[in-house]
């Protein structure tokens, strides 16, 4: 009997929850805000689905109902990716400045 590929994906999912659990508990409380903004940025990897949907249009009709939803999702996810990573970077930069000053 063959194992359904779904079970493999489910295994990855469950194991990742455990990884997430231990990794997030080790995040220092002073970095909880950057944690939220960076998780925001990485969850926008959903953009891969948006790209597939957007590129599914044929060359005659680039914009059909399905691909339009894809294109809008690309914009939304891109705002999040750039905004999320850059604002995280901006915050983390502040944690650095004073360190240097002290040294």
């Amino acid at each position, binding site marked *: 009997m063959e194992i359904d590929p779904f079970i493999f994906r489910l295994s990855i999912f469950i194991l990742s929850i455990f990884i997430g659990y231990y990794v997030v508990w*080790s995040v220092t409380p002073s970095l909880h805000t950057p944690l*939220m903004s960076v998780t925001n940025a990485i969850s926008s990897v959903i953009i891969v689905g948006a790209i597939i949907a957007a590129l599914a249009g044929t060359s005659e009709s680039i914009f059909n109902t399905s691909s339009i939803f894809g294109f809008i999702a690309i914009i939304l996810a891109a705002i999040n990716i750039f905004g999320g990573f850059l604002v995280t970077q901006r915050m983390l930069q502040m944690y650095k400045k004073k360190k240097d000053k002290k040294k």
Partner: protein
Amino acid sequence: MISANLAAIFYLVSGILFILALRGLSSPDTSRQGNYFGIAGMIIAIVVTFLSIGNFSTSLVYVIMFLVIGGAIGAFIAFKIPMTAMPELVAGFHSLVGLAAVFVAIAAFLNPAAFNLGNVGDIKLASLIEMSIGAAVGAITFSGSIIAFLKLRGIMSGAPITFSGQHILNLILGIGIFVLIFYLCKTQSTNIFWTVIIISFFVGVLLIIPIGGADMPVVISMLNSYSGWAAAGIGFTLENTALIITGALVGSSGAILSYIMCKAMNRSFVSVILGGFGADNSADDKKEKKDQKPVKSGNAEDAAFLMKNASSVIIVPGYGMAVAQAQHALREMVDKLKKNDIKVTYAIHPVAGRMPGHMNVLLAEANVPYDEVFELEDINNDFANSDVAFVIGANDVTNPVAKTDPKSPIFGMPVLDVEKCKSVLFVKRSLSPGYAGIDNELFYKDNTLMLFADAKKMTEDIVKNLD
């Protein structure tokens, strides 16, 4: 064009890079490197997606164009946003993830062939379940985050909105979603799919409106978690490992943060969800206390005198400091104190501010070294050995009632033992209660000196008087 297997391996790599991105946040020193890992993971995921499709038609030009437009908007926001507005920003970003999840699910439903999920009207059962769950959670995340955003921005009142039968309505709608998904699987009807999404939008609104302003840190963390589960749902639909791993990471991260926030307020997760906190202002109770007890109030000169003669000072900042933008003036004051060889530390309560870790970021912005900033459990014993506690913009998190009065709504909440200090300086505009809507006993203690003024102005005046 690369093979599906190779693409899957690259998606795994990007998933691992995302894990390392979170791992980096375990200390400020490694955090920036972590962020670069995250960016690298994202670039790999996007490039691999382009390569695996290999359809370089004119659509690609549009995809890149939209990517750049979104990126430019995101970058603009990231550079412009003041640090005090981080909670709104994060809530806003959550709503975008949620909506993106909904749109990807819709796209997959309308054109399943593009995702190898079958054909219109004949979508694989498992995929249909996955995409409708992804869409439903995404829709809840979207509308819930919009409400949270409006409340945090002050466009909508932070007061909880409750009506009778609310919880039953939520329950019915929740069950309704599951029933509809069941029929969707049987009929593949487009109308049912849209109905599921619309009901989910309503559920998102209904879930967040009863939650009061004081519980906002929990709400943001909770929506963070939802956005992760929505992404994971879509990840299952697209059979994409990067998305599944990320969804699980974000989902558990948000759940842990919600747990930490609930614990810091001594509230159960269920009671936060059910809402209504922050509404229980028993008006008569407040009035009675107000005209009975005397308060000592002072001015900047008194405060400066007290601090100059102290040998150790603990600063207790709260959201009020952020609102008044007093963090830079505060830093100036601390610099002066340090010049006089006074030991200064900062004590941060986990729920100070409107989101987890918000106060730390604001202090970091004002160039406060992070090794002078301590969490509740690390500093609480030091109050008894310190001369002055300087409470600026915090309120409920210092209220000794949480330890003494079992009837108080905040009883049992871990609080900072500010009253154990030899003297307490409490900067506040008036005697009004904090978000929890209860009076702070600290105001009436003998060793408390109230400084009635705007936080920023008072701090600046103290700085002048320290010379």
